[in-house]
């Protein structure tokens, strides 16, 4: 009797282990592709300013300051939702500068050459500067594949965190703020 009970328990055990593994797999979000850039220097860029056409902004702007590089576009609904949070962060964190990257947001027609501007007028502007990248010149180097995405770059120019999806209060307090505190310039 004991032998046959054991024989039934082994397949049951294997089934339970497999079920646990598969349920865990279901909870993973395949759209959150981990970035290979964490711990690496932020890729260099030279892009036009969204608000100042013709003025070029280089990656020197990241040097010496803790930065959030926030990737958005005017067609991105979740970015609009995230915007209020970014404004709050900009107010609360004087050490932190928020750099915007207006990604793959080209003009729909001649009447609105830079849709990003109307978006900012509507939702506010928490950014120190905004980089205009309609042709995915910088985005591809940063491994951007959707919006919103946000990179935390330390004052030495190393990428320390990538947020895929909007930043809400929970994400900010639980995931990003601890790293901000870790790399915050002292004194």
């Amino acid at each position, binding site marked *: 009797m004991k032998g046959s009970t054991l024989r039934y328990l082994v397949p049951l055990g294997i089934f339970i282990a497999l079920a646990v593994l598969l349920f865990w797999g279901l909870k993973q979000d395949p759209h959150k592709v981990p970035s290979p850039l964490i711990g690496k220097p932020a890729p260099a860029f030279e892009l036009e300013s969204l608000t100042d056409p013709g003025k070029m902004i280089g990656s020197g702007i990241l040097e010496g300051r803790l930065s959030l590089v926030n990737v958005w576009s005017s067609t991105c609904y979740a970015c609009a939702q995230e915007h209020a949070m970014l404004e709050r962060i900009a107010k609360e964190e004087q050490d932190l500068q928020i750099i915007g990257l207006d990604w793959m947001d080209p003009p729909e027609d001649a009447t609105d050459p830079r849709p990003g501007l109307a978006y900012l007028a509507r939702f506010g502007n928490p950014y120190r500067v905004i980089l205009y990248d309609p042709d995915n010149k910088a985005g591809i180097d940063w491994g951007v*594949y959707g919006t919103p995405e946000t990179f935390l770059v330390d004052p030495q120019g190393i990428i320390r965190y990538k947020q895929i999806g909007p930043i809400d209060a929970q994400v900010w307090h639980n995931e990003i703020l601890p790293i901000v505190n870790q790399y915050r310039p002292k004194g």
Partner: protein
Amino acid sequence: MPITRHLFAVALAAALAWGSAQAYTLEEFQFDNPAQEADFRTLIGKLRCLVCQNESLAASQADLAQDLRQEVYDLMRSGKSNAEIIDFLVSRYGDFVLYQPPVKPSTYLIWFGPFVLIAVGAFLLFRVLRQKGAEPEAEVSAADEARIDALLKAESGSGQDQ
């Protein structure tokens, strides 16, 4: 036979679908020769569209996929080898950009796991079958044996309806 006709129709549809999935995204690109075009087609088939993640770069309609196809094309035209192009993308997007996961310690489980499971299952099956064969037949008492014989004789005697 209706079955073979169905099979033929399905095979034809599959061939057409496969053919069209390969071809439609390539009209905009110019190549020096068919070999280069075939190379390009193979390469983008090996890369994943990160937006429509079940599709390869060859099949996906997403904006980002179009952009990455252009990028791969530009890199190829500038003389970069397949390995260099793949390395370019993997260093920016990670291993997930490869449609087929690389064989690395972190992926041994998905590559070899199924075979290991099959081997374990086959081994267990083999053991169970061997045990069944070795089991002694149930002990039957002499009285029961006599009853069995009598019953069998009676059955074979009274003409069986088959």
